[in-house]
């Protein structure tokens, strides 16, 4: 059965694919998705620098043959994500002056707006959670009251067959699984994948939490599919954490996220990437927002050795809106690359992207953004902006905004800045008694405030601020 070819990818091969299919309880149509992706996978090589999306990503040191999935989790312990302390203890840090009589933010939950509940997740309550390690789900649960309302949440292995009507139309159909080697590898070999389906009209007040962990040298190929029916509402917090640090075996994440926001639905989606600094991170992520649907999508990235992330939003129905937030902090020799797409397919949609990055050490951050407006998408309002703060002279940031507009009645703008921390700001703060480190942290926190102000989930804001604060060195 083994196909002993000259292929250097000993682990991710046809034999493995068949083993996965034989041992999994996914329906046959889902196995067909794997096989189709595998066919594409074997025809592709690693992306090269001639590819526009990869030209600023150096994957020469990534050795595909070095990686293969583990038969069982090396350790059942799930690495602690950034949100763990806040979620477990439920301590909402209402410690900022701003939190007193805070005004209602535009992307706040309708629940909160209606005054029926506090901010989602207040008190650390979760609607559901799922954790995996090295590509194996180790625990999952969903509030039974939500299950009774028809909410589906848990491992794809258990749920895909029984909820094919709701999930099959979207399963690996949102992202392009053929676009490159990593996307195809993910679609063929994904494991520990999870699904969330919220039926029309169901609003989930508390967040759902999905964490994918890895041990040193581990592999994670987990997939997340989120589908919100018409008028549904949910908050999904996904995290990745663990793996090895620089100089160890490291780790390999080859993941994908698919999101469908139904008509008039509202989703707050958060992806926090906090791998250790030896991990290779490749992720294809795409959301489709239907008419009058709203999406607030926040990416936070602090970890990994090298990241290459595609974050696409398609505004597919009239009046859809998406707010995209990015918070990146890099240090050492980390190299993070983001390709974002705001694709306006329908008229009268709004998209607003704000990525902010702070760079320390010799790290490098690349953002390449595109707003694409189809001919049909009149009255588009599109915005993209990337601000970077350089905390060292050796760090490097590239911002490459782009517009591709075919409609004539649109408003599309973009902006990018790159700046340094001003020594005079630090002195001013020190003259008021703040230590050099405290001053640096405050200035950097201030830099991120604009994007934090947009994130309407206090735990996420606080966790990111705290994690970033903890990594900032003294700025001379």
């Amino acid at each position: 059965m083994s196909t002993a070819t000259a292929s250097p990818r000993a682990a991710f091969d046809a034999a493995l694919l068949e083993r996965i299919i034989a041992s999994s309880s996914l329906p046959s149509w889902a196995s067909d998705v794997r096989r189709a992706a595998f066919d594409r996978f074997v025809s592709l090589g690693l992306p090269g620098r001639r590819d526009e999306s990869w030209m600023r990503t150096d994957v020469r040191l990534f050795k595909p043959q070095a990686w293969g999935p583990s038969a069982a989790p090396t350790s059942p312990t799930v690495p602690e994500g950034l949100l763990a302390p806040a979620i477990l203890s439920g301590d909402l840090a209402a410690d900022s002056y701003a939190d007193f009589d805070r005004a209602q933010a535009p992307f706040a939950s309708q629940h909160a707006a209606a005054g029926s509940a506090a901010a989602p997740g207040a008190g650390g309550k979760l609607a559901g959670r799922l954790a995996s390690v090295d590509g194996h789900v180790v625990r999952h649960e969903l509030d039974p009251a939500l299950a009774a309302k028809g909410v589906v949440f848990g491992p794809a292995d258990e749920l895909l067959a029984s909820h094919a009507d709701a999930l099959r139309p979207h399963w690996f159909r949102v992202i392009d699984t053929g676009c490159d080697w990593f996307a195809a590898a993910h679609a063929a070999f994904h494991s520990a994948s999870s699904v969330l389906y919220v039926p029309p009209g169901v609003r989930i007040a508390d967040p759902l939490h999905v964490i994918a962990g890895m041990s040193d040298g581990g592999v994670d190929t987990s997939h997340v599919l989120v589908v919100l029916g018409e008028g549904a509402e949910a908050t999904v917090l996904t995290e990745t954490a663990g793996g090895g640090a620089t100089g160890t075996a490291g780790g390999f994440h080859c993941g994908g996220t698919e999101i469908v926001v139904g008509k008039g639905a509202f989703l707050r989606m958060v992806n926090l990437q906090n791998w250790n600094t030896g991990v290779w991170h490749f992720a294809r992520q795409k959301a489709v927002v239907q008419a009058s649907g709203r999406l607030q999508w926040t990416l936070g990235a602090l970890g990994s050795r090298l990241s290459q992330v595609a974050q696409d939003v398609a505004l597919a129905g009239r009046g859809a809106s998406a707010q995209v937030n990015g918070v990146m902090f890099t240090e050492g020799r980390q190299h993070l690359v983001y390709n974002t797409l705001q694709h306006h397919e329908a008229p009268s949609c709004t998209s607003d992207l704000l990525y902010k990055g702070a760079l320390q050490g010799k790290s490098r951050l690349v953002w390449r953004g595109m707003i694409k407006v189809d001919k049909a998408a009149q009255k588009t309002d599109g915005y993209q902006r990337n601000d970077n703060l350089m905390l060292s002279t050796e760090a490097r940031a590239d911002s490459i905004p782009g517009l591709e507009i075919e409609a004539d009645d649109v408003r599309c703008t973009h902006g990018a800045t790159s700046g340094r921390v001003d020594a005079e700001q630090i002195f001013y703060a020190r003259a008021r008694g703040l230590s050099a480190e405290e001053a640096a942290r405050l200035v950097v926190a201030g830099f991120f405030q604009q994007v934090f102000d947009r994130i309407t989930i206090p735990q996420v804001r606080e966790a990111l601020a705290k994690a970033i604060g903890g990594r900032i060195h003294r700025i001379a």
Partner: protein
Amino acid sequence: MPSAAEQLVIKGLHVSVEGQEILKGVDLTIGRGEVHALMGPNGSGKSTLGYAIMGHPSYEVTAGSIEIVDPSGARHDVLAMEPDQRARAGLFLAFQRPMSIPGVRLADFLRHAVTNCRNPDRKEGQELMPMREFRNELKAKMAELSMDTEFARRYVNDGFSGGEMKRAEILQLAMLRPKFAVLDETDSGLDADAVRLASESIARIGGAEMGILIITHHEQLLEHNIPLQTHVMLGGRIVESGGPELARELHKLGYERIRAAYPDAAAAEKAMEESAKAAAV
């Protein structure tokens, strides 16, 4: 009586910026509870003195000393302290041009500042002053200064008008209650009513506890803060000291008499102007 109070003692202070000597031997002693005025033409070195007292890294002290001498006679070497240690030791500088820190709320900034200045040994990460207590105190102080509490939610000096910046500096002075404060042109940018209010406020904040050095080109700020001494700086030196009448004279008549009386300092002023011009080219 004055000898019993804690003093800020500056002796023979020489300060250079980028290798260029700006202060050429400054002597000044300020006791707590005293108000001193410092006047002098543009570029004479007044702000430089303020920065040197606060420890700005660009201002290199090449000779002389700055010490806090407490009533027991114990001397604390200010020059050995980092800027934040100086603030925690009770020194304060109201900046001629305050820096903005976008994204950082004035209230949050001040809460860090107040906590540190009241617990000089606080390490970062240790508890801040309790929010409720801080907020009540801040509200009370803002009311005394006729400031809208909404102001504290704005980002530090970000988009503030000239007058708002100066009022924010006075608010910080009020919250931090230092032992010694240098107010560098805290009256500039304020309208006539605001200057009067500032003058009253500073007098109230200072009380009998604070030693204040008021750097000014005017005399209104001195209305409620009668200086024990008025000092005139020229060419990087304090060339003359007198009473409140000296401030009035300089404000009305300018520095002609001073330049004529101190030709060496006037020559130094010329030389400084020239080298500043040369540096700009």
